[in-house]
């Protein structure tokens, strides 16, 4: 890694005061009057980033030495990958952030053509070590490729050439959920950092901070359930909070009469209420097919998502000690199949029934 | 082959009636004094469309002018070589030039009238969307051309290549007064006669081919069967067989059988499998072969095996796997007697639909899929229904018009309810239509209609 840090501090040519006007999607969002809280409360400095000590330390060193290796950040969604690199870039370039950073995410077209033209063109622009206002700054640009695992392999291959060629003036930062979806030649050219899931306390802390600043009235119970639902995903936690705030408090500035409750949160997040899960297992245990049919029918009418149901049920089944391992394995095996079919368009009713009858038979076995 | 070309109408082995048809067309043209008539001659390959045209033209003293397309290819090649400066004319322009110039400026060498024959169509017209261009040329020809024009078309199975359908729709035919004559594949008796004549001729002119050996009657019969009404093919095969005479026949047979890899019974059969063109099954025939799969016991291994290799059946339908599978699906139920067998086969059909829908890697997948279905049909049916069941058409044919009608109804009514908001297809058919019918059936006193 040291080798990476030492590399390329060469180009000192002063051409290129402005580097074009690439605008990421994020800019557009900022034009909107109300900024989503996710953006508003993004960490401004690397030190603000919650947890992820390892990465932060490295980045801090980099900031001090004004250099950066090629980075590959990966980890669960909402753990601060994008926030971290954006914060670092802001610290490096200050107000000239826009000229030096190209941000592309999966929503932009990212076929080979884009890699070949857009990325290449940006990479080939010269970067001076002095800012237009005379202050020193690192002589390179950063290209951030968000959601890099959604790129096609061909595009990744095209990227690898560009990465090699442009090391002198450009640093790449790839962000993805699954490092295994990035082709080997690219991972070997990057310093990899894994972002760990955030602990409940950290999420809670952050949410409380936001609630305080935005004047959100919310039950502790509700807060706790947000944290629960988010499962260490900060983005999800914050958006859930904001959505419920929007719906519950609205323009009503005080929002006093309407504190957000746990029920609201559950409704907002599309979670299936616990009652359905336990009922379901109960019915399967009792080996009552008629009841199972009725249950599934009713469940459908409530319009909850069947895949969400399975997500939650899987956890419940795994944790339930009264179910034998054999039963668990039968059920979870089926669940995998059924959840896959659901995602590809299978009927919720039939898939639920299929799983239900399997579970029913599994409980029979004892 | 060339040397055997028919010279008089008597030599032609087309059905005399058809010859008469063509003659009539010529005569009609002369009687009416209209010289720029257009004829469409359609027939299977090798049904001697061109030969007939040539012979009869001669009879009526016409010079035959054929649209030849070669020069054109050369020019295109030139283009590709990078010589961009070369003045290059579009195919369609060349075609137009041919039609109009040739017909207007009579050759100085002969005072005979000319007849234009177009057999190879310029490619550009075959592309979708270019039909209009072709029609304009035709119309132009109709107005200024002076000579009769004949288009010769070969029947094909594939839709996209069907010139008849695409370039000569009924509308255009009516508009331009295009006549059509359909040629049938040559019948077995006529073919037999022709081959005999040829053999006789060959003997007369032994100097042309000193090695000529007269083939036996059985071989001729097989050649005829193989050719399926294609005289060109038959003559070529005859030539091949007759020349082979010098080589040891049995040797020949062995090497050929290995290549063809099919089950064979009689020696003559063997020869023919070797020399015949690839067996072409009609789609109905092919489906029948899969559904009424013949099984026989292998004399060596004592295992039951299929008489017809599923691969070779599949090979015949690679260009249209979808159609084949659909026809098979429409007809398979009649040949099954056990519901358990049906269960197994429908399982395969269900999987096959998934494969057929998959568009990635479609080329390979669809070939495999076709094979899967054919094998499935051959193997799954352990207790075939007794008696022969003819293959009928597609089972859903009669429902297509209903579907069309319902859809039209939906489109016209979808915004009538719901306060002018769109109604989804599903809601419309599942809920509204049924009740609307009910309301109507109770007739008067209805509050809604």
């Amino acid at each position, binding site marked *: 890694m040291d080798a990476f840090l030492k590399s390329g501090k060469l180009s000192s040519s002063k051409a290129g005061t402005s580097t074009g006007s690439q605008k990421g*999607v994020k800019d557009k969002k900022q034009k*909107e*009057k*109300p900024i989503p809280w996710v953006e508003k409360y993004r960490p401004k400095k690397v030190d603000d980033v919650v947890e992820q000590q390892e990465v932060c330390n490295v980045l801090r060193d980099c900031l001090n030495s004004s250099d950066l290796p090629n980075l590959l950040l990966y980890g669960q969604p909402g753990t601060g990958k994008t926030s971290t690199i954006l914060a670092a870039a802001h610290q490096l370039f200050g107000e000239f952030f826009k000229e030096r950073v190209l941000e592309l995410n999966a*929503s932009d077209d990212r076929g080979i053509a884009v890699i070949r033209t857009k990325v290449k063109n940006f990479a080939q622009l010269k970067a001076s070590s002095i800012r237009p206002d005379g202050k020193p700054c690192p002589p390179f640009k950063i290209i951030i490729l968000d959601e890099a695992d959604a790129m096609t392999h061909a595009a990744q291959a095209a990227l690898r050439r560009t990465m090699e060629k442009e090391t002198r003036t450009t640093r790449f930062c790839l962000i993805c959920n699954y490092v295994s979806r990035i082709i080997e030649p690219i991972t070997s050219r990057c310093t990899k950092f894994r972002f760990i899931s955030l602990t409940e306390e950290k999420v809670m802390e952050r949410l409380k901070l936001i609630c305080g600043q935005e004047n959100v009235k919310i039950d502790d119970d509700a807060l706790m359930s947000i944290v629960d639902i988010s499962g260490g995903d900060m983005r999800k936690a914050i958006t859930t909070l904001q959505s419920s705030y*929007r*719906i*519950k408090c*609205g*323009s009503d500035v005080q929002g006093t009469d309407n504190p957000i409750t746990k029920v609201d949160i559950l409704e907002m997040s*599309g979670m299936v209420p616990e009652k359905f899960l336990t009922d379901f297992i109960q019915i399967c245990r009792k080996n009552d097919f008629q009841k199972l*049919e009725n249950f599934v029918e009713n469940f459908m*009418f409530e*319009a909850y998502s069947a895949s969400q149901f399975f997500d939650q049920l899987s956890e419940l089944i795994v944790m339930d000690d009264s179910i034998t391992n054999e039963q668990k394995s039968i059920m979870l095996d089926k669940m995998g199949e059924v959840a896959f*079919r*659901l*995602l*590809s*368009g299978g*009927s919720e*009713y039939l*898939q639920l*029934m*299929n799983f239900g*009858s399997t579970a029913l038979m599994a409980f029979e076995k004892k | 082959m060339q040397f055997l070309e028919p010279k008089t109408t008597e030599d032609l082995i087309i059905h005399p009636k058809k010859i008469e048809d063509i003659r009539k067309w010529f005569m009609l043209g002369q009687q009416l004094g209209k010289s720029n008539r257009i004829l469409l001659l359609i027939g299977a390959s090798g049904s001697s469309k061109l030969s007939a045209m040539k012979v009869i033209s001669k009879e009526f003293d016409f010079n035959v002018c054929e649209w030849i397309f070669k020069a054109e290819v050369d020019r295109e090649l030139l283009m590709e070589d990078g010589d961009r400066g070369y003045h290059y004319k579009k195919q369609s322009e060349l075609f137009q030039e041919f039609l109009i110039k040739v017909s207007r400026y009579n050759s100085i060498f002969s005072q005979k009238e000319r007849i234009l024959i177009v057999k190879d169509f310029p490619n550009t017209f075959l592309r979708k969307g270019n039909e209009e261009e072709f029609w304009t040329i035709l119309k132009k020809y109709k107005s200024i051309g002076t000579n009769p024009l004949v288009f010769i078309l070969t029947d094909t199975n594939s839709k996209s290549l069907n010139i008849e359908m695409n370039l000569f729709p009924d509308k255009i035919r009516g508009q331009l007064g295009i006549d059509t004559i359909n040629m049938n594949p040559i019948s077995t008796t006529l073919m037999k006669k022709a081959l005999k004549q040829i053999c006789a001729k060959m003997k007369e002119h032994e100097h042309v081919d000193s090695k000529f050996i007269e083939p036996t009657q059985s071989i001729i019969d097989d050649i005829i069967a193989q050719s399926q009404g294609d005289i060109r093919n038959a003559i070529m095969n005859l030539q091949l067989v007759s020349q082979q005479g010098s080589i040891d026949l049995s040797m020949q047979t062995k090497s050929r059988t290995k290549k063809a890899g099919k089950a064979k019974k009689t020696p003559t059969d063997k020869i023919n499998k070797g020399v015949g063109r690839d067996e072409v099954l009609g789609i109905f025939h092919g489906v029948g072969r899969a559904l009424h799969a013949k099984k026989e016991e292998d004399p060596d291994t004592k295992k039951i095996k299929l008489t017809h290799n599923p691969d070779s059946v599949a090979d015949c339908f690679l260009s249209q796997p979808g159609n084949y599978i*659909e026809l098979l*699906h429409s007809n398979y139920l009649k040949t099954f007697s056990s*519901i358990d067998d*049906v269960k197994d086969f*429908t399982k395969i*059909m269900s999987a096959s*639909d*998934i494969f*057929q*829908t998959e568009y990635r890697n479609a080329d390979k997948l669809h070939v495999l899929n076709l094979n899967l279905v054919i094998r499935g049909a051959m193997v799954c049916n352990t207790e075939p*229904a007794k008696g022969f069941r003819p293959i009928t058409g597609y089972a*859903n044919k009669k*429902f297509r018009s*209903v*579907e069309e009608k*319902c859809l039209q109804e939906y489109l016209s009514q979808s*915004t009538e*309810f719901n*306060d*002018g908001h*769109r109604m*989804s*297809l599903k809601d419309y*058919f*599942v*809920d*509204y239509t*049924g009740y609307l*019918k*009910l*309301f109507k059936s*109770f007739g008067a006193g209805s*509050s*809604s*209609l």
Partner: protein
Amino acid sequence: MALWVDKYRPKELSKLDYHKQQAIDLKRLCEQQDFPHLMFFGCSGAGKKTRIQCVLRELYGPSAERLRNETMNFTTPSNRKIEITTVSSNYHIELNPSDAGIYDRVVITDIIKQIAQTNIIDTNGQRDFKVIVLTEVDDLTKDAQHALRRTMEKYVATCRLILCVNSTSRVIPAIKSRCLGIRVASPTHEEIIGILNQICQKENLKLPAELARNIASKSERNLRRAILMLEACKVQKYPFTNNQDVPEIDWQRFLNETANQILMEQSPARLEKVRDRLYELLSQGIPPDIIFKVLVQVLSKKCEVEVKSQIYEFASLYEFRMQMGSKQIYHLEAFVAHFMSIYKKYLIQATEMMMDMDE
């Protein structure tokens, strides 16, 4: 004269008959400056569209109800011309992109771009965005859904999307996370009965309690169907009687008959007849998933638990394949054949058991 379903459709959020709390929440949402993308989900006949219309009215006032029909044309990359019919007001446009079949992606990218790029004509409008209502989003191909997600981000400045979805399981998570989900549960039997009574009151009819309950339970908690049934009852016979027949729609009767035919005989010949009937249903526009569900429900009722579980097992397999594939009849047929085979064995076993018992 409009049908009752349309006549008594609430036009304002405050007049909705059930999910009142949700209506209040929606109203509050409409009052705010920033309006998110919305996704309404629920079974058919639960009232999603009604709510969407109410939200539009809340946003733009009554002029959002002045509608016109338009057809939009576009060309696919393979040069095919496709027409899509839309319904629009000055402020919003409604379309069903799955009308375009496999070209739905083109609709999403091209048409929405077109709409999004033309700004609102009304200058004194309260909103600086247009609304695009997309129906049956769950029927879109995955390709189109990904395109949709891009579109949502790209044109967020000029338009908002309101999606109408039956089953959220078929919507990719990226879309779900970009929308505020509004769950529209089907009305309960009591709620349906309440609404039926209201309608009868307005029409000056007397609705016996028994009949109301009957309709509610037959409607499968589908309000639209319940109201249509009520009107059908009225047309059929009025004054109402307590034990009056609730008329069945023809396709339902037809499908039930088909199921009975399957139960009566299990042979290839019978299957062929059943297949013709299925073709007929499909050609009349009855969605195959509904056919599938009804068949499974009717058929499984006749079997023991072990057999039932088998039925659901392969029903779920074939139904899934049907959604994946393109020829629905193959899979429906495979299901029926499978059922016949199992049911036949089951019957034989049952008779053997009986014989044993007799001995």
